């Protein structure tokens, strides 16, 4: 088993970048197989004959073509369109240089949206992280109904943003179920305009986001916890460590890589947030209620206003902000898990990695 896993890793990560941006999905970062060792001998290294080339073309071709055409090309096109003032019909001709970018970066509405995004990034980490951790630690033991519990915790993550948005907005409207419930409990005084009050709306959004996405964090942490051998906790227990000491000094540090990868996914998700805000608040209310995000700003001022050049420019700004934050995060936080990160400089990958 372990030898299979090892060989799978060296072949899988041999291409060089598997660990980092792959995040959760890739085989995990590991210090076990330094890059310098030759990969497991490939079967039939018969160079590349024409036959093999044709096979490769047939195998990779379709995926690569679709991917490049519909993911890479649009991202590049966004960079190009961003320099034009363009209504989306005919070829873009009205070249305006960096005017779109100047407008975006000086637009108070964009600053607001960016501020909301950063708030959501930070609060998502601060709220979801600890809660998810506590529940993962609590649930990480033999329980009856274990798989039922897991499925139920995961439910909000599986249902669509539209269902979540409609359900929550009906519950939270002025004469909705939540205020009604408060009334029943004799707490009617606490009732509020959860969705439209600018001082409350963003917190409402945080509650909904937490509700929707915390199940993912818990399941991820539980998965990580199951990879930590029991022997360590048992040894510590024999040495007289208390339950909480074990969690704090043994389990948490070992869970580090999982937590850091979750945080990375959460940050990227928070920066790109669109669906929930657009469904619950819509284009106009989101800016007055103080829940607009960069993505809703992009759609409202791009496609919504028929200015595709401007919308593309916002996409580029959004992309670079995400990229910078992602790179910083990888440099500073993820580096100890996956030396190399996005930038696959051989120097970085050859360094002995911190055992994780």
């Amino acid at each position, binding site marked *: 088993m372990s030898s299979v896993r090892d060989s799978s890793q060296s072949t899988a990560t041999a291409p060089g970048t598997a660990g980092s941006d792959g995040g959760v999905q890739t085989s995990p970062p590991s210090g076990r197989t330094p890059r310098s060792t030759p990969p497991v001998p490939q079967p039939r290294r018969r160079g590349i004959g024409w036959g093999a080339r044709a096979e490769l073309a047939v*195998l990779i071709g379709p995926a690569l073509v679709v991917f490049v055409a*519909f993911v890479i090309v649009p991202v590049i*096109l966004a960079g190009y369109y961003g320099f034009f003032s363009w209504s989306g019909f005919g070829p873009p001709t009205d070249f305006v240089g960096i005017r779109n970018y100047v407008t975006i970066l000086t637009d108070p509405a964009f600053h607001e949206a960016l501020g909301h995004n950063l708030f959501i990034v930070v609060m998502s980490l601060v709220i979801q992280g600890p809660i998810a951790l506590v529940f993962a630690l609590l649930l990480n033991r033999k329980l009856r109904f274990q798989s039922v519990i897991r499925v139920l*915790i995961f439910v909000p993550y599986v249902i669509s943003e539209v269902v979540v948005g409609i359900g929550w907005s009906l519950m939270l409207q002025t004469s909705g179920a939540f205020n009604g419930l408060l009334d029943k409990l004799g707490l009617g005084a606490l009732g509020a305009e959860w969705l439209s009050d600018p001082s409350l709306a963003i917190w409402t959004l945080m509650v909904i986001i937490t509700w929707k996405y915390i199940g993912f964090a818990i*399941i991820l942490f539980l998965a990580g916890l199951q990879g930590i051998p029991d022997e360590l906790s048992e040894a510590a227990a024999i040495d007289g460590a208390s339950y909480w000491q074990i969690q704090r000094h043994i389990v948490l540090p070992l869970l580090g890589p999982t937590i850091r990868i979750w945080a990375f996914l959460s940050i990227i998700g928070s920066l790109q947030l669109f669906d929930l805000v657009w469904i619950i608040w819509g284009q106009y209310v989101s800016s007055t209620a103080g829940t607009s995000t960069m993505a809703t700003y992009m759609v409202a001022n791009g496609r919504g206003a028929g200015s595709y050049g401007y919308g593309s420019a916002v996409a580029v700004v959004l992309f670079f902000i995400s990229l910078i934050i992602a790179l910083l995060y990888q440099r500073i936080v993820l580096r100890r898990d996956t030396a190399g990160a996005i930038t696959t400089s051989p120097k970085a990958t050859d360094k002995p990695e911190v055992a994780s």
Partner: protein
Amino acid sequence: MAVTALIRTPAPRARRAPGQSRSSNLFIYFAALILIGLMLAPVVYIVIGGFRSNSDITVDPAGLPTEWRWQNYVDVLTSDVFWRQVLNSTIAATATTLVVVLFGLMAAFALSRYSFRGRGAIYAVFTAGLMFPMTVAITPLYILVRNLGLANSLAGVIVPQIAFALPVTIIILVPFLAAIPNELQEAAFIDGCSRLGFFWRMVVPLAIPGVITVGILAFIGSWNSYMLPLFLLSNDELYTLPLGTQAFASQYSVDTAKVLAFTSLSMIPALVFFSFFERRIVGGLTGAVKG
């Protein structure tokens, strides 16, 4: 064997540190119960709301139905609109899933079992795809799809969805295929199997667990996808469920009960799908996260 072992959830282990008594387990069940209650309350609200009448809801927004009315659900289930949207969503999700799995398997096979120059680069291109969520590409993507004449068609939704689902698919499948023992491949060659024959006869059947994981992810992703259909579909004949649910909610905003019924019916397929394959998804994550 080894391949399936990679993605299985490890058997739950007892983790009884000292000081964990019966009572602390009771506390944990209690905590789990509260968490589950909070997670399910909004869903329950939506489902139960569908059984109420509008006047009920207005008078007492947080109450239980005074009488359980099936009428809202029956209305939705007998309407063409709902079934048309279910059909559209099913077509989009099925086509996306099938093509993603096929293309993903082929590319992952090439990336994991051939050695050629540029392999690392191609793999890097796909992993970089994770850095481009649809949000960033959506504006030019819309233009591109429109210029291809695919705006307002399900194909226009399906093809970009395939493209955006490929990175995750390939990243999950590559380690899977790489874990297939070389001896198998050599044995197949000795028996006169070509590499492509090996792919069809050995790799595809052996990769089934991984295929199921990526297939479910792709299916649920497509089923729930909102932004792309929002941009591309303006003809309500073509609306997928998320779009249709939203349109229904704004069109019948007075008829809260029916909106709730529609909403709760629209979330059933994803939930059913998920609970069938829950072990696979959670197991897939587990296999991926743990060293």
